[in-house]
């Protein structure tokens, strides 16, 4: 059996794959490639030739810039002049900047909406689907996935209209059912704007988690459900002891992906609130963009990029590690 990558494994989820090694194991497998002994006649330099053109573009336009971001974060750089080394100054400024901290806090606040709520909705729907066969599931799946296909800018513009205080369907509906008092200028309201932006994130996210989990359930051994039923498990117990453990990997993947989405919010804030009202929906990527490209503090913005990247990588790895530990304990 050839070793499979990370991604191949995910593909196989949908086509019912009973053997599921831990994520970290798979990550490692993806990295530790076992060479194949298929073609003794192949000269080893051929591999480099095939790889070279793409790898060159990748190195120049992605890999080296990543290293440069790290380097520039220790420099005073306007984006136009020669970078001047300034040690940890950018990081010190960052640590003392209240705007940055509130932006970072907002990103974590948005995790609730972009990440946690979609996972809960996804689990709820999935629990409804485990015991019964639903006809037309494909149609639901296709429809629910639509927000994943749309440009975030379009999503933002559409929701600006949805939440428009006068013409927006939400307030129109509230007024028509006599709940006028609940109508708000959602995106411009000092209390509600963060929730409104968050709700848009939840809307984008839940189709993804639902489809991911429903696909995952199909790979759970049906015998487990039969056994549960023989033992007289009620729907909650069935969910708790069969579905939930069976979906652990999908939940972790959903968490990591949606967590990254929450940390990287940019387009949505750019088109809905521009960080307002009064800066209460500012997020790190927006601050980064402004500092780097509007205010000519590119070195400082690079430090922001490093912090953002570190948080994303750290949380992703910790989550994957915990999942791997749990899977190990189970075995």
């Amino acid at each position, binding site marked *: 059996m050839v070793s499979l990558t990370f*991604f191949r494994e995910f593909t196989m989820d949908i086509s019912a794959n009973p053997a599921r090694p831990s994520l970290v194991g798979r990550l490692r497998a993806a990295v530790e490639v076992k060479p194949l002994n298929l073609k003794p006649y192949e000269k080893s330099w051929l591999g480099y030739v095939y790889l070279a053109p793409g790898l060159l573009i990748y*190195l120049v336009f992605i890999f080296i810039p990543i290293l440069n971001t790290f380097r520039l974060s220790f420099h005073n750089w306007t984006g136009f002049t020669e970078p001047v080394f300034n040690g940890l100054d950018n990081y010190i400024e960052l640590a003392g900047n209240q705007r940055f901290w509130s932006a970072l806090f907002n990103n974590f606040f948005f995790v609730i909406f972009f990440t946690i709520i979609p996972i809960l909705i996804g689990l709820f729907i999935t629990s409804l689907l485990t015991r019964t066969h639903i006809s037309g599931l494909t149609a639901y799946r296709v429809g629910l996935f639509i927000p994943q296909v749309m440009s975030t800018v379009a999503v933002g513009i559409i929701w600006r209209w949805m939440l428009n205080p006068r013409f927006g369907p939400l307030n129109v509906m509230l007024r028509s059912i006599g709940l006028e008092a609940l109508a708000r200028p959602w995106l411009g309201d000092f209390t509600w704007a963060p929730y409104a932006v968050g709700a848009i994130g939840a809307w984008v996210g839940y189709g993804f988690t639902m489809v991911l989990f429903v696909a995952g359930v199909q790979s759970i051994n049906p015998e487990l459900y039969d056994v549960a039923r023989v033992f007289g498990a009620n729907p909650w117990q069935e969910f708790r002891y069969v579905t939930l453990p069976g979906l652990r990997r999908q939940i972790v993947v959903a968490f990591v992906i949606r967590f990254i989405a929450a940390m990287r919010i940019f387009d949505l804030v750019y088109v809905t609130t521009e960080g307002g009202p009064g800066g209460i929906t500012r997020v790190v*990527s927006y601050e980064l963009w402004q500092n780097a490209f509007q205010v000519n503090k590119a070195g400082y913005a690079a430090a922001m990029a490093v912090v953002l990247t570190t948080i994303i990588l750290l949380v992703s790895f910790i989550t994957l590690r915990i999942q791997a530990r749990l899977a190990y304990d189970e075995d």
Partner: protein
Amino acid sequence: MNTAAKPSILPRNLSTHIILSLFLLAAVMPLIGTLLTSFKDPTDLAASPFALPREWHFENYEKAWSQARFGDYFVNSIVVVVAVVGISVFLTVLSGYAMGLLKFRGKALINIMILVGLMVPFEAVIIPLWGLMRDLKLYNTIWSLILPQVALSFSFGTFWMQAYFKGVPGDIVDAAVIDGCTSWSMLWRVLFPMAQPSILSMVVLLFIWTWNEFLLVLVMIQKDSLRTLPVGLASLQGRFSTDLSLVAAATVIVTVPTLIVYFIFQRQFISGMISGALRG
């Protein structure tokens, strides 16, 4: 099927259907409402948001297309997407083949390097990339959009195609070798045709990601004539003399191409998204 069991199952299924339908409705209603708004007159907006337009105003699209330059943006988007996807497919078929089937030193290291591109957010690339593009005199050209997105697609596509090539049954390769195929002809004559489904999924994913890219275009392109659709849409709000129905029409123009591709290839997209989701 078991018709006897149906009556007892129906109520439960019905409630599930209702709940699913509600979520489905929530997912598609905003889009439908926008579509309706795009045909309305600005003075017709006060009516119920989901009411049909009093009169169908197709000129909102005409205005968006020519006056607001969405025709130009559309062409730019198509050019960028076709170039990025075309170049990426060619490069990643090569690299995936090398990584998946060929034997050479340093493969593990290269894999880690490529993995970095998948794990690190684009925010960690964009600042030096901006400087690089200016140094290369590519800033404010279509290449400043194509090259970075080819590079981004390369890291994803290499993993994707590598997985495919690793899964190729050994006896097919053996047979090709016995037939005297060179590695080049084996790739394009034998393996490439077999890889079509896998490549198609990748094409659909890359199409939609590239179509929707925002930050890169926002940073690299200052010329209005080179903007792609999402950035054109975002800049529409700041411009003078726009109204909500024009904005809605523009939103539809941005969204419809991805929706068409999605509806045709939904199976590939959904399975691809789930399996390749880490790029997000």
